[in-house]
C-alpha cells in the first residue's frame, strides 16, 4: 500500500510538472502582451521596457520557467500582474466556495443519477426506463449557462424559493449545485443503468433470489455494491469535468469560486493567476483520481495492487 501510494504520488508530481510546463509554454506563445495590458494606453516605450524587466518577462523562456518552478517549490505562485496581490491568497480566498459547490453538486448528482439509473435498470424497456433515459440525455446535452438561468428564473424569481444568486447559506447552494448536477446525473444514470443491468444478469443474483431473499435486500445488499464500482472511478474523472463547469456556473450565480477568478484573469492575460488556477485545478483532478482509486481498492477486494 505504501509502495502504491508513493508510486502514485510520484506520478502525480510528474503530471503536475507536465501541466505546468505546457500551460506556461502556451501562455508564453500567446499572441498577447501582458506588459501592454499593465502599462496602459498612455505608456511610453521606456515605461513598457521597465515593467518588462521588473517582471522578468525580458528573459528567455527557459529562465522564466525555471524561476517559476523555483518559486513554486516554495509554494509561491507569484503576484497577479493587474491586482498586484499574491496569487496564493487570491486562490485560497476562493477555494472554499468552489469546494463547497463541488461537494454540493456531487451529492446532488449521485442522489439523482443513481436513483434514476437503478429505477431504469429495474424497469428495463418500460416507459419509465425510456423517459428517464431521454431525460438524462437532455440533461447531458443542455448548456449549463441556459440551465442555470432557467433554474434562477423559475425557482428564484418566479417561485421565490431560493435567493437570486449569491453565496452564504445552504439555500444559496441549491440552484448552482443542481445546475452542475443536471449534467452529471445524466452521465451517472446511464452508467448506473448499464452497470446495474449487467449485475442483475449475474448468477449470484439469481441465487440470492432463489434463497428467498426479499427483492429489496437483493438489490441493496447484493446488486448495488457491485454495480456501483465503476461509478466510484467516475467520480474521480468527474472532478475534471467540474473544473470546466464551475467557470460557467459560478459566473451565472455570482458564486465566488476560482472559476470566476480564472475567467477574469484569462480575459486580461493575468498570467500568474491563470497558471495558479490551472495548477490548483490539476491538483484537484489528480487528487480526485487518487482518492477514487483508493476508494475502489477498499470497495472491491478483487482489485489488487500491482
Amino acid at each position: 500500500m505504501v509502495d502504491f501510494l508513493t508510486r502514485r504520488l510520484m506520478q502525480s508530481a510528474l503530471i503536475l510538472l507536465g501541466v505546468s510546463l505546457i500551460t506556461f509554454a502556451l501562455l508564453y506563445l500567446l499572441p498577447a502582451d501582458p506588459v501592454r495590458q499593465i502599462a496602459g494606453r498612455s505608456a511610453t516605450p521606456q515605461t513598457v521596457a521597465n515593467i518588462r524587466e521588473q517582471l522578468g518577462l525580458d528573459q528567455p523562456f527557459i529562465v522564466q520557467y525555471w524561476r517559476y518552478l523555483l518559486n513554486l517549490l516554495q509554494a509561491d505562485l507569484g503576484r497577479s500582474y493587474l491586482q498586484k496581490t499574491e496569487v496564493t491568497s487570491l486562490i485560497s480566498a476562493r477555494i472554499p466556495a468552489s469546494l463547497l459547490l463541488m461537494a454540493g453538486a456531487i451529492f446532488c448528482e449521485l442522489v439523482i443519477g443513481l436513483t434514476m439509473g437503478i429505477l431504469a435498470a429495474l424497469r428495463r424497456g418500460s416507459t419509465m426506463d425510456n423517459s428517464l433515459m431521454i431525460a438524462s440525455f437532455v440533461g447531458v446535452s443542455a448548456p449549463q449557462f441556459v440551465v442555470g438561468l432557467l433554474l434562477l428564473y423559475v425557482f428564484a424569481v418566479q417561485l421565490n424559493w431560493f435567493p437570486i444568486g449569491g453565496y452564504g447559506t445552504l439555500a444559496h447552494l441549491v440552484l448552482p449545485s443542481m445546475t452542475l448536477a443536471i449534467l452529471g446525473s445524466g452521465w451517472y444514470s446511464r452508467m448506473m443503468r448499464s452497470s446495474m443491468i449487467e449485475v442483475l444478469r449475474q448468477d449470484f443474483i439469481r441465487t440470492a433470489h432463489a434463497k428467498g431473499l426479499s427483492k429489496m435486500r437483493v438489490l441493496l445488499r447484493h446488486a448495488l455494491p457491485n454495480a456501483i464500482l465503476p461509478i466510484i472511478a467516475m467520480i474521480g474523472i468527474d472532478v475534471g469535468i467540474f473544473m470546466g463547469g464551475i467557470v460557467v456556473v459560478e459566473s451565472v450565480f455570482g458564486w465566488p469560486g476560482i472559476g470566476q477568478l480564472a475567467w477574469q484573469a484569462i480575459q486580461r492575460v493575468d498570467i500568474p493567476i491563470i497558471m495558479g488556477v490551472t495548477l490548483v485545478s490539476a491538483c484537484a483532478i489528480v487528487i480526485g483520481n487518487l482518492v477514487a482509486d483508493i476508494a475502489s481498492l477498499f470497495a472491491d477486494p478483487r482489485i489488487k495492487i500491482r
Partner: protein
Amino acid sequence: MKKFLISTALCGSLILPATAFSDAHSDMDPNAKTGGNIIITYKDDVATLDPAIGYDWQNWSMIKSLYDGLMDYRPGTTDLRPGLAENYSVSDDGMVFTFKIRPGVKFHNGREMSAEDVKYSLDRVTNPVTQSPGAGFFASINGFDAISNGETDTLSGVSVIDPLTLKITLSRPDATFLHVMGLNFASVVAKEAVEQAGADFGKTAMGTGAFKLGEWTIGQRLVFEKNEDYWREGLPYLDSVTFEVGQEPIVALLRLQNGEVDVPGDGIPPAKFQEVMSDPDQAARVIEGGQLHTGYITLNVKMPPFDNVLVRKAVNMAINKERITQVINGRAVPATQPLPPSMPGYTEGYEGYAFDPAAAKKLLADAGFPEGFETELFVMNTDPNPRIAQAIQQDLSNVGIKASIQSLAQASVIAAGGEADQAPMIWSGGMAWIADFPDASNFYGPILGCAGAVQGGWNWSWYCNQEIDAMATEADSMTDPDAVEARLQTWSDIYMKVMEDAPWVPVFNEQRYTMRSGRMGGADSLYVDPVSIPVNYDYVYVNDVQ
C-alpha cells in the same frame, strides 16, 4: 475592459483662476435625505482600489469616492473645479502651476493631509516601480523622463513650498494639465498606509474621500462607509454603499426587479433592453446618458489595399451605420468623425462619408479593384461585437469586398493591432476609445498620431501624418485663456484633415443606459456621471430614510 473619462466641459474653464468657480455648497441637493445604504452590483471583481493602478469600469468611481485629487469635477458634469486645492494660479507662460492646498483635510486615519502627500503621490504614480497605467499622463511635468528612466525617484518639477503650497513646473505647455490633475491617477494617498501595506496596498484604501473602505470580502462584496469628517460639509448623503461583485448583468437586473438591488453597475443587458423599455414602470427608472465614446473601424494604411486612400474612402461609403446601430437596439447614434458630438471641438454640420454603395463601388473601380478584394476584419469575441462585425461584413460584400471575421479575445486583438502587418481592419467595439478626460486632444495622440503608430501601440490604422502631428503639438501649447476658441478650431481642423485621409470608419457614438431602484433619489445626471463613471456615489441618496 478599460474605461476612460468623459466630459463636455468647456476647455475655457481650464486656465481661469479658481475664483471663477462657485463654492462647493451650490452642488448640494435641497431634497436630499441623509442616511441609508444602497446595493450596487458588478459582474467583474474589483481588481484593485489603488488609485495609481485602477483603470476599470467598476473601480473608477469607487476610487473617486475613496480619494480626492487637487482638481475635481462638478457632480454630473464635466466642469472642472478645485478639489483638495483651494485655489491655484498659473504663470503667464502657462508653465508653472501653484496650488494652495485646502487646510484641515484629514485622511481616513485622522492625519492631516499636506502638500508633502500630494508630492509623494505624484512621485509614486510616475515611478516605474509602481507600474501605473496612468504614468504617461504626467509626461509634461518637469523631470518625468528622469523618473521614468529610473534615474531618480522624485519629480524635479514638483516642489513643496510650504505645507499648504505646492508648485508644479512643466517641461512643455500643456493645455490639458488641470484635467490630468483631476484624473484618479493624481489622487492623494497617505504615505504611511502605502508603506505599511506594500504591494498589497490595492486591497486597502487610505485617502481623504467621502467614503472609507469598511469591509472587503474578496470575490463577494465591498462595503464603503461614510467618512464623517469629509471636508465637503454635508456629504456624502448615504451612510454606506455595498458593492456585490461577480453578478451577471442579467441576474443583476432580475434582482433589481425583485427589489434587492439599487443600481446594476454594468447597465441594462442588451437581451433585456426591449423588455425593460416596454414596461412603463421600469422604463421610467431608466436613465440615458451620452458618453465621450466613438466606435470605429481601423483601416491599416500600411497593408495593401488600404494604403490607397480611394479604397479607404470606398469602405467609409460602404458601411450602413444606421443599420449597425439597430444591431445594438438603437443604443447609439451614427458617427461622422472621430470626436463624439458632446466633445468640445466636434465639427458641427460635417456630414462625413454618406452611405452610398454605388459610389463606393465606383471608387473601388477607380482604385483598380472593380471586382473588390479579400481581407480580414478583427473583432473582440464578446457580444454584441461579433454581430456588429457580421453587419460590417455584409455591407462590405455588397461592394465586392470579402472580409473574413477573426473573432478573438480582447488581448489578442489588441496585440494584432499593435503589429504593422497583422490586422487590415479592426472593429474597435469593447476596446474603443472613451475619453480619459474631456478634451479634444484625448482622441488623437495614442490612436491617430504618429506616437501611437509603433509596435504595441494603440494606433491600429498605423496612420502617421507629420503635418497633422505638428498641428496637434501646436494646439496643446495654446494655454492662453484667450486662445481657447482658436485651440478648439485647430482641433476641429485636425480631425477634418484626418477624415480626408480616412484611416478610420467612425461608426457610432454609444449611449449609456442604466437603471435605479424606486427608492433612490438625486439628479439623473449622477447615475450617468460623465466623470464618476458609472455612478457618483457621493451625491446620490435614498428617499426611504428618516
